[in-house]
């Protein structure tokens, strides 16, 4: 870990302003990902701006029937919130399938969205990784890639986005609220928050330097049956090989999103329309253009079969 300076932010705008004008600054909230990465010198911030004291830890109703979740709301608290449990069960299930109780107690809503990949080559600083060291190459492409992404990938990077929560947020069409260094705020559809790697895998979101996430807003509840199915080699405390988030209505319409297979939570609007036709048709739309490796081609079959399981479960609930 490199030496760094540290301050507590006094307001979101101050934090954003300070971050933008301090080279090498990073925000820290739960620290469940950043601190690990700093110890390994994968992240080497020179200045940490601690946002934990900011007034961003509330969950409140918004006028259209939706819910605003403060950026600092801990995953545990979000999963336990009565309205989230009642109206956004898919989010609760996604949250509780991630990490461990201890980590969820610390991990925040914004931090979860912005967590970095778990690609083992990203984690080994001796190995090439375009995400960690732009231009150094991608060791995973021809290496061990069973866990890696099968779609949305490029020659520069095949890493996945590891979050479960983000998959549910994407399914629900959440909106991310931010404050920019000049004090203005903006709203970003979650679909637009994460970038595909292209030839710049080190740039993972559309956030500008210094821009701070302040809240995530969920639209009005969708009703329907909520399912989150995470498939993994062990029963707990593992990242998804494939995950499926779905909300299915009584008439068989609905929406689906995938985790574990792409550099961002994966949703294809055209796939939702195929839901009444079953898992095969949905999966075909979701995975059109997939580029798996020899190690992870099984994920294509697994997506279809997991979708089948989810639709069967949603149907059984209906």
């Amino acid at each position: 870990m490199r030496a760094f300076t540290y301050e507590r932010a006094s307001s979101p705008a101050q934090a954003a302003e300070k971050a933008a004008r301090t080279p090498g600054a990073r925000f820290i909230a739960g620290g469940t990902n950043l601190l690990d990465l700093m110890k390994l010198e994968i992240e080497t911030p020179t200045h940490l701006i601690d946002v934990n004291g900011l007034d961003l830890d509330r969950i409140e109703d918004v006028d259209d029937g939706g819910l605003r979740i403060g950026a600092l709301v801990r995953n545990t608290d979000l999963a336990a919130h009565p309205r989230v449990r009642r109206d956004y069960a898919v989010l609760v299930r996604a949250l509780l399938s991630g990490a461990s109780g201890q980590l969820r107690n610390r991990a925040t809503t914004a931090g979860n969205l912005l967590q970095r990949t778990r690609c083992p080559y990203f984690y080994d600083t001796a190995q090439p990784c375009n995400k960690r060291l732009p231009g150094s190459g991608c060791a995973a492409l021809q290496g061990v890639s069973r866990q890696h992404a099968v779609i949305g990938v490029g020659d520069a990077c095949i890493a996945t986005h590891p979050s479960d929560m983000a998959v549910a947020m994407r399914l629900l069409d959440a909106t991310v609220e931010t404050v920019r260094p000049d004090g203005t705020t903006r709203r970003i559809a979650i679909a637009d928050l994460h970038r595909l790697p292209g030839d710049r895998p080190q740039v993972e979101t559309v956030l500008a330097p210094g821009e701070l996430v302040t809240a995530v807003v969920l639209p009005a509840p969708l009703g329907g049956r909520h399912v989150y199915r995470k498939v993994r080699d062990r029963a707990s405390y593992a990242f998804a090989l494939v995950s499926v988030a779905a909300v299915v209505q009584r008439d068989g319409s609905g929406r689906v999103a995938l985790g574990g297979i792409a550099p961002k939570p994966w949703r294809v609007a055209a796939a939702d329309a195929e839901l009444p036709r079953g898992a095969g048709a949905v999966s075909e739309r979701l995975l059109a253009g997939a580029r798996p490796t020899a190690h992870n081609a099984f994920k294509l079959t697994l997506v279809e079969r997991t979708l089948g399981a989810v639709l069967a479960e949603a149907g059984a609930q209906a």
Partner: protein
Amino acid sequence: MKFDTPATTNPIDRLTIVGKPTDRIDGPLKTTGRAPYAYERHDVAPDAVYGYVVGATIAKGRIRAIDTHAARAAPGVLAVVTADNAGRLGKGKHNTARLLGGPQIEHYHQAIALVVAETFEQARAAAALVRVDYERAHGRYDLARGRDAAVEPKSDPDTGAGDFDAAYAAAAVRLDATYTTPDQSHAMMEPHASIAAWNGDRLTLWTSNQMIHWSKRDMAMTLGIAEDKVRLDSPYIGGGFGGKLFLRADALLAALGARAVRRPVKVALQRPLIFNNTTHRPATIQRLRIGCRQDGTIEAIAHESWSGDLPGGSPEVATQQSRWLYAGAHRKAALRLATLDLPEGNAMRAPGEAPGMLALEVAMDEMAEKLGIDPVQFRVLNDTQVDPEQPERPFSQRRLVECLRTGAERFGWQRRAARPAQVREGRWWIGLGMAAAYRNNLVMTSGARVRLDRRGIVTVETDMTDIGTGSYTIIAQTAAEMMGVPLDRVVVRLGDSNFPVSAGSGGQWGANSATAGVYAACTKLREAVARRLDLDPTAATFEDGIVRAGDRRIALTEAAQDAELAAEDHIEFGDLAERYRQATFGAHFVEVGVDAWTAEIRVRRMLAVCAAGRILNPKSARSQVIGAMTMGVGAALMEELAIDRRLGFFVNHDLAGYEVPVHADIPHQEVVFLDETDPISSPMKAKGVGELGICGVGAALANAIHNAVGVRVRDYPITLDKLIAQMPRIGK
């Protein structure tokens, strides 16, 4: 004490303390955080400074140049130790690669430098400033590609009996199947950790090590100093599983660092380094051929296994159990060793049998299926009471058949559908599987010193280790039983090389051998007590704090009123191990569910029935067996060091990437011990049990998966991607 004739009745047979389920005497220290583990020995070296290990980032080649200027100039840094300035170093008997590499690099993450600084954070930050210029060399990282060039190891020549080839060719029913097992890591909770301090030319090492004497000797050999200048102390060990049998880089580098800075230095191997820096269980390719008569009698059985290691390394003896587990007049076993440039292979819990049973016991299941015979019955049919390679040599005890039958009965085996993919509960396909369990019983010379003080406290000292197994407790039980005192009058001190040399913890020989050593020392102490009390040593009995001979009864404490009494002895095993084959036996039964859609595999029930001689402490023995069963679930379903075959290293080198079972993976586990004593094994009439539990359990799981969905995976671990293309129709 020489043990060369079968044990007769002795004081242990009273079983007033030995054989009773007993809580760990060290339990309160551990649960309250007061058991001092190596890295936390703040009391012994309050002024210790911190070392951080730099590992090589190529798998094979040499260091052209290593630049430590920036690291040495970094805040707090006291020294940077490399091969250039460490002085001349030898190599321990149990090390294959050098513990401090350079200029030659033998494997990925081989230690090449230790940065010593005032704080851990300073050492870690400075370690990142060490710049190394490497010259990469071509390496061999693929066992399958090295298979044809593999050679018969001198240490383990081919064995057999009869004429396998002819008998196999003539057999009515034949199976020829090949299985692979991956490299695995011990993944113990406590990392390898040491604090070293020099006092003149004497080195003290507070460390975490299973085999105190081996490592003391190897430290002396490596440093080129006399063995008596080295002291090791390792009273508490946070898991080892074979990963801490040997002197490793943490210990050597702490010693070198301490010599360089003239202060105590503490070093823990950082977790991401452990997987490539230390030893691991080597991958195998195993070919099984079994030829049977139509009635299920095995006529011919051959087991061949290929594994790899660094030059000078050793094979994984995966064929071991196949020499002795089943009858068959015509047989052979052969190991082949390939040269690989991956990190060094060595023992991990039940080396040999753990991977070997994963192959043999699936082959037996496949053969039973071909024959149309129940898998339990097929094994019963082929039981043997003598060593099949040397029929004149009987087993000392062998109750495999009773284990199989007891297990089948208790598990409800008769409910198993013989045809696969028949049983469905909701989303789950349900399968039952079983396998025999087999692990050799090894005995090792083991010493102890026992003292009796005037308060009647019995203190046992031996360099035996407790790696979480319960050694403290069974040693206390042994001494209490022998001296006729309650458990709370016994103090046990372990893991110090100043104490008599013991068997140490490995190969499941520790419990039986070390307690037998304590038995020997207590026998001597009893004689000393009797003499002091003027009682006939051959007639004296020790019970409830009273020594009795004829009509005389004297309090034990009387014997030590004037001066403490002490006795030291060791148990030495004669040729009983040659005259009899000694092994432990068992049967594993597993019920598994396989998700009809995703092919996720989840264990539902497990049962192990064990015949392992006298069970000294049923509570800690059960704990050993369920732990081993859990490790077997890992081996069957998830554990694999994933090799990058271009770059030559284990890629998933942390506990996020190397998955071991978590609580949610482990369902109800039941363990049954047959009531057994083995007087040929030792005066304790006990055997090892710590490894038996892992031997066969993974195969039982593999067989259960086959029973559930009809897919036979011969390539471990059995992950859902290997099933998914062949799953039965989802249906329902």
